């Protein structure tokens, strides 16, 4: 349903003439109703990927297709109509609602622009339904965002995204800005909505336990590329890439509602994305690095059915067995 092909994104380096390769050729597919988890360290390009998928920014190259329609070439009204289908929930509920709009206006405006609920009375009713859907009291319509708690605001953000009846919802660290106590509530709400509305999710987090909790499939990102991808159990419990192994090892608590946000701690420093290492970008930090890793960038190759990895060592280890 949603298909990204070879997405790249370069940003000019501030105060220089180089470029940051924020995304270096990412391809992914998402089926209806499926949840794809994306994990990776800070700076691995997760948010950049999200921005390209919702067309907040134009890719340097590559395409994003939704049901066969290439979104990257659409403009104006046609883009507005298509992009409705892919919505996004932002990380920080404190900055993602206009401080000068009441909750009712925030939601009503979206309905009005897309002519989704008929006249003013119809919109009012629909706003009530949306608030109810995300577990908020419909009387909150008269409130301003600053009168709401973080969790309530995030629910409003979810309601706004759902107002346009999307098929895909991008969740960029949807709970990491919230109090630990309300994280589980929001995660459960997202879980319920996915089932009730048959939504597909792209769930972004640097917290592996969170991704494990919700994903059907998982993609692991490192330095603007996907280094391992497949069924969640296979990728997370039977990780082949040394980077995934290191990310997973940093997460001792499997229950996301109990865990403080866990910064993945992989040994070594993240390389400068403006000046990536030769060969495999992970080789300077990799315990298994060999000569071939210094010279050749590994491709994402099938390791098992529904499990791909971009690692010379892992692939070689797997091939004789296959």
């Amino acid at each position, binding site marked *: 349903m949603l298909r990204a092909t070879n997405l790249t994104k370069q940003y000019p380096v501030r105060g220089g003439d180089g470029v940051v390769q924020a995304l270096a050729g990412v391809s992914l597919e998402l089926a209806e109703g499926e949840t794809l988890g994306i994990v990776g360290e800070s700076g691995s390009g997760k948010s950049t990927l999200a921005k390209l998928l919702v067309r907040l920014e134009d890719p340097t190259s590559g395409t994003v297709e939704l049901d066969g329609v290439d979104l990257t070439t659409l403009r104006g009204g046609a883009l507005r109509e298509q992009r409705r289908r892919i919505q996004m929930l932002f990380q920080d509920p404190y900055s993602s*609602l206009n401080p000068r709009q009441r909750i009712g206006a925030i939601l009503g405006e979206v309905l009005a622009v897309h002519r989704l609920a008929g006249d003013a009375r119809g919109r009012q009713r629909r706003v009530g339904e949306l608030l109810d859907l995300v577990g908020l009291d419909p009387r909150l319509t008269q409130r301003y965002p600053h009168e709401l708690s973080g969790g309530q605001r995030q629910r409003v953000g979810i309601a706004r995204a759902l107002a346009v009846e999307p098929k895909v919802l991008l969740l960029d660290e949807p709970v990491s800005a919230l109090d630990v106590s309300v994280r589980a509530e929001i995660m459960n709400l997202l879980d319920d909505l996915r089932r009730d509305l048959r939504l597909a999710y792209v769930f972004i987090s640097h917290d592996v336990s969170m991704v494990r909790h919700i994903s059907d499939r998982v993609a692991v990102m490192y330095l603007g590329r996907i280094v391992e991808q497949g069924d969640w159990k296979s990728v997370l419990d039977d990780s082949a890439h040394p980077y995934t192994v290191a990310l997973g090892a940093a997460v001792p608590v499997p229950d996301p509602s109990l865990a403080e946000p866990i910064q993945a701690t992989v040994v070594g420093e993240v390389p400068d994305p403006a000046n990536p290492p030769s060969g495999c970008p992970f080789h300077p930090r990799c315990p298994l690095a060999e000569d071939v890793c210094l010279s050749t960038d590994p491709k994402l190759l099938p390791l098992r059915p529904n499990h791909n990895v971009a690692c010379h060592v892992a692939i070689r280890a797997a091939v004789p067995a296959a």
Partner: protein
Amino acid sequence: MTTAVTPAETTVAVGAPPATTAAWRRLLRSPAGLIGTVLVALILIGAICAIAGLTPYDPVAQHPRDALQGPSGRYWLGTDQFGRDIFSRTLAGIGNSLRVSVVAVALSGVVGTLAGVCAGYFGNKVRGPVLAVTNVLFAFPPLLLALTLATTLTRNWATIALAIGIVYVPIFVRVTRGPVLSLRETDFIRAARVVGLPTRRILARHILPNISAIVTVQVTLSLSWAVLTEASLSFLGLGSPPPAPSLGSMVFDAKVFASTAWWTLAAPGVAIVIFVVGLNLLGDGLRDALDPRNGRNS
């Protein structure tokens, strides 16, 4: 006399919407805000009296036998060299100054804010030209442009307002562009785009309301500078043509007599000071009162 043209501090006040009554209460609780409000109210009352014709005498009527009299029961603030009532002339001068300043600032505020919002929100294709024009205008000494316009076009209050208005456009471009630039990168603007709101609506409903505090403060401060610029122009003989009273030309006329008849200088001088100081204090008070970070529910 040149007016210092410095844009007000450009802080983005993104936060809670200040409920209007709460903002008023905060304004009147601060000394600057209270004094500013009172002074500006005085000015407004004076201007309204002048416009409504409620002056003790006709501001241009001459009473030659009463020339250069000091303040008295008949002429509260004395008379000038033609025996015109200085109190009436001062009120009329305040009315004229206010008219010129309000029109000038309205012009520059609307044009400058629109240009600043566009320069901040859109990419380099818009930003480049807007900033180029702004910089050229900014490099112009206000008095020089006003002088040029006033001498080439017909000289009346509207020309003066136009000249001051043009010169002040860059101020509004400068104070709005930065905040819009950072607003553009906030999640609620991104969310508005993702959810498919048309750009015009995003600018009108999401960007503008969030810079209204900055614009309000800038309007107040610019008004005070406009009053000074208008007075300077009149002082140089480029303001509204005589005999229409203007604070600047009253000061100009008074300089010959000031040593013997101090009251000729005192009234328009004090009026200018009240005008400028009042608006400045009000601007400062508003800046604090409208900043939502300052105790939103207090």
